[in-house]
């Protein structure tokens, strides 16, 4: 069985600076794969390449065998890849429920006149989407805040809302960009459980994370980037013991 | 559990609408405008609407004209033309941002029409405003008597017919001034035959009046043996004419004709001619620039400037002596080109109302009756001479006077009656 997402010798240079150098990477269906590395290693650039913010200078990116190169972010999302952002980007002055419903828009069909006249089909669609959104909020534990403004949620909940929003269109691949940043230990544990149960729903997860305990605890596979290059990959235990990884994180002579 | 705030909001919505309603109801009947009448109002009020440009650059045309109309109302009340009734001039400004506006004129006519006490309107001053107002006055059956609009298309031929959208056969627009098919040629004759000018460059503001009068002027100028070296339009609100006038300078005219008003650029053009090498070239215009605003804006450049006016010079008329002295006493400012015309126009309306009332047995007449009386005006004696309205609503009294700006003042040169 071929990998769900595969990057083949992907490079990205900004001016003369190589942010990602000839990176190849496979994410198997149903796995939790982590991308780690020190700050500035190019992890977020990889996400931006996958989601279409940047076009790769070289190489190919494909989902389920279909090339994503040159697609706009909205087209990438429509093809089944959803993401969260390192610095949370919610729709602040919209309700929690509306945020999740926007996530589902790719799969909705109602046009302007449907919306304006509340046609029966639009109404059915609307209530079905609202219902599934409520279920997702239940899933991430935010159901009771469904009608609150997104911006009024505390930080940890905003992280979870972003995840719920990304899950709304039932993506095949979910990209999580440092979901544990700024959360406390209890929240971290809950987050680990959440990510595992997302995988159990059949969504493949690609994760950027700094928190080693979390990464080691849930990943099926880990890829380590340093200066835009992959320096190690494999099972958590293998990566943990890799001398190049230790060097990259702790510096030479450590 | 009822959320209290919703109740408050509902109450708020209700309160605001009630307040709006209340204010509407309370202010009913206060739609009166600035008014002038001799002494305290007594008896029933009959209004003559006055629609003129009264602010900005156009005020120097509009205000003296307004004064003329107000004076007529004062005199009419003094003469007790109609027992039990008082005449009031209901004045509205049709200038927006200091320039006459057809839209505002149309709005003003609608507000006059909505006031049952308004039986006729004196105005407007500008032909393009009249063009917007005539279809309304035609539809509403409200008489419009202009002291100063000179474009012939407002009353004559197919273009005029087109303006009478509702009742093509009924005339509701009258005027007491001559028209540009006379004013233009009269000016051109003076420029060609008296001043011996040969090469004319034409500039107009592209409005009904400006375009019309410059075309009429040019036709006669060519007929008199002159030539037109160029004809351009300017844009309202424009400040910089250097480039345009430089181009005109390259055509070597010996006279620049400006068709338009001071408010659309007549003064600025004259002022900037000097900067573009046209300082020594004569400047010719029509009644749109024969005002004090032109002298103010053009400053030291206001010489070698000629302008026609489609009305008689009241200073020369014995019948206007009392008018002139009363005007001075009342307003302490010089009369304008059309002050006397406005006085006459207002008097025509007032007398039409009085005659219609007599016919109705002393009751307040309706607008249709006033209109009928106006249509049949014959040999009406006025301070600008006796006149009738022809079948188009034009005065039979067609006088053009010519002025020259010299040392910061307008000097009267000559006048002639073109009535056949």
């Amino acid at each position, binding site marked *: 069985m071929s990998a769900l997402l595969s990057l083949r010798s992907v490079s990205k240079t900004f001016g003369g600076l190589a942010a990602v150098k000839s990176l190849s990477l496979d994410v198997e269906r149903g796995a939790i794969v982590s991308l780690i590395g020190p700050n500035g290693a190019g992890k977020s650039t990889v996400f931006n390449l996958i989601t279409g913010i940047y076009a790769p200078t070289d190489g190919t990116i494909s989902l389920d065998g279909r090339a994503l190169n040159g697609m706009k972010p909205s087209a990438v999302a429509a093809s089944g890849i959803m993401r969260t952002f390192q610095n949370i980007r919610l729709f602040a002055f919209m309700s929690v429920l509306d945020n999740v419903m926007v996530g589902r828009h790719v799969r909705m069909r109602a046009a302007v006149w449907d919306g304006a006249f509340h046609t029966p089909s639009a109404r059915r669609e609307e209530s079905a989407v609202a219902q599934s959104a409520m279920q997702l909020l239940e899933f991430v534990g935010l159901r009771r805040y469904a009608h609150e403004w997104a911006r009024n949620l505390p930080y940890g909940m905003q992280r979870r809302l972003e995840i719920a929003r990304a899950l709304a269109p039932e993506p095949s691949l979910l990209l999580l960009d440092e979901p544990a940043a700024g959360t406390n230990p209890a929240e971290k544990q809950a987050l680990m459980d959440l990510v595992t149960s997302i995988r159990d729903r059949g969504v493949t997860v690609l994760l950027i994370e700094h928190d080693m305990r979390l990464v080691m605890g849930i990943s099926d596979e880990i890829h380590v980037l340093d200066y835009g290059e992959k320096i190690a990959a494999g099972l958590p235990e293998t990566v943990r013991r890799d001398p190049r990884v230790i060097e990259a994180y702790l510096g030479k002579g450590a | 559990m009822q959320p209290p705030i919703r109740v408050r909001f509902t109450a708020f919505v209700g309160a605001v609408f009630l307040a709006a309603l209340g204010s509407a109801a309370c202010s009913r009947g206060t739609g009166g405008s600035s008014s002038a009448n001799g002494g305290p109002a007594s008896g029933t009020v009959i209004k003559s609407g006055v629609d003129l440009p009264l602010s900005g*650059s156009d*005020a120097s045309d509009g205000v003296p004209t307004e004064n003329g109309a107000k004076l007529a109302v004062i005199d009419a009340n003094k003469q007790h033309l109609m027992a039990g009734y008082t005449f009031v001039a209901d004045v509205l400004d049709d200038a927006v941002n200091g320039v006459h506006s057809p839209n505002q004129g149309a709005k003003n006519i609608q507000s006059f029409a909505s006031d049952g006490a308004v039986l006729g309107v004196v105005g407007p001053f500008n032909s393009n405003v009249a063009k917007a107002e005539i279809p309304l006055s035609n539809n509403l059956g409200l008489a419009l008597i202009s002291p100063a609009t000179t474009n012939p298309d407002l009353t004559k031929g197919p273009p005029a017919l087109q303006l009478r959208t509702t009742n093509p056969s009924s005339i509701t627009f009258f005027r007491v001034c001559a028209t540009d098919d006379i004013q233009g040629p009269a000016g051109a004759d003076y420029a060609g035959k008296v001043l011996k000018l040969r090469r004319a460059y034409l500039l107009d503001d592209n409005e009904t009046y400006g375009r019309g009068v410059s075309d009429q002027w040019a036709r006669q100028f060519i007929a008199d043996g002159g030539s037109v070296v160029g004809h351009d339009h*300017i844009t309202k609100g424009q400040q910089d004419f250097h*480039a345009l006038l*430089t181009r005109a300078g390259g055509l070597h005219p010996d006279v620049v004709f400006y068709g338009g008003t001071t408010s659309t650029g007549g*003064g*600025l053009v004259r002022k900037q001619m000097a900067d573009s090498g046209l300082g020594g070239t004569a400047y010719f215009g029509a009644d749109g620039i024969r005002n004090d605003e032109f002298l103010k804006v053009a400053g030291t450049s206001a010489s070698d400037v000629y302008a026609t006016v489609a009305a008689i010079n009241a200073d020369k008329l014995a019948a206007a002596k009392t008018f002139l002295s009363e005007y001075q006493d009342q307003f302490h400012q010089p009369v304008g080109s059309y002050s006397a015309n406005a006085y006459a126009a207002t008097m025509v309306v007032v007398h039409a109302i009085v005659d219609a009332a007599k016919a109705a047995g002393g009751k307040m007449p309706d607008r249709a009756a006033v209109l009928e009386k106006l249509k049949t005006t014959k040999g009406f004696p006025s301070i600008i001479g006796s006149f009738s309205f022809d079948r188009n609503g034009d005065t039979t009294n067609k006088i053009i006077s010519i002025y020259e700006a010299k040392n910061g003042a307008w000097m009267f040169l000559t006048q002639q009656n073109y009535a056949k």
Partner: protein
Amino acid sequence: MADIHQFFQQLINGVALGGVYALIALGYTMVYGIIELINFAHGDVYTLGSFFSLSILGLIPLSHIASGPALGLIALVVILAAALLCGIVGVLVERLAYRRLRNAPRLAPLITAIGVSLILENIMQLWKGNSEVPFPQFLPDRWHIVGGVKFDDRAVLVVAVSVAFMIALNLFVFRTRLGKAMRATAQDRDAAQLMGININSTIAWTFFIGSALAGVAGFISGMYYGTTFFLNGYQAGLKAFTAAVLGGIGNITGAMLGGFLIGIVEAMTSQYISDQWTSVVVFSILILILVFRPSGLLGEQVPEKV
């Protein structure tokens, strides 16, 4: 031959008009460079400059002064006074209307700026009325003919004054400490603050200088046209803004270049196309530049942060 003369004659008209636009454009560009705000009220500060000049001239018994040098001195004093007053207005506007909104969503200060513009216009209307106000013509009317092309002292004055102030501004921005602080703040406000630069006073100075230049433009345009009008700043401001965009907004040299180019475009449109279409041509240039080359002629493309 005549055609060539016409061309150069129009070039002079265009350069004179362009000098006014360039001076106004500098204020737009400096303010935009430092706080990314299109200071919509800037055009009205320019008109305010001509109104201030008018009032100051009214205090001077011009008819009693005959000699050339004395008149030149008066001109200089009036320019500086108008610049100072406009500068103060600019600083006040920034302090009262814009500072609170420095970190608000972008549209908020832009809407405020439109409001300030309307308020300034109406204050001028209250002050001098809503018709053309004549400007005293106290400089002698002297004509020069160079190679068949005629121009008078006022055209020389406009070009000389605008160029002189542009040179002064360049020296100021690139040679003085405050100029450096302004450039640093424009680059990165937070970093500049960390380096010990007082952001508030730097921004206030930017407004002061930009508005003072608009004041200078107000004076010279009053001298050049001989009249002024309370709504003049709206169109002139938009055209100067077009100039700033054409040159590359945020770029001081670009603003000057853009100003002269727009002035010349206007004059040439008037000569070779039609005077009626000058505004349409200028605003079409604005739209085309923004759509196809938002960085302008001299600006650099700045990618938006993701």
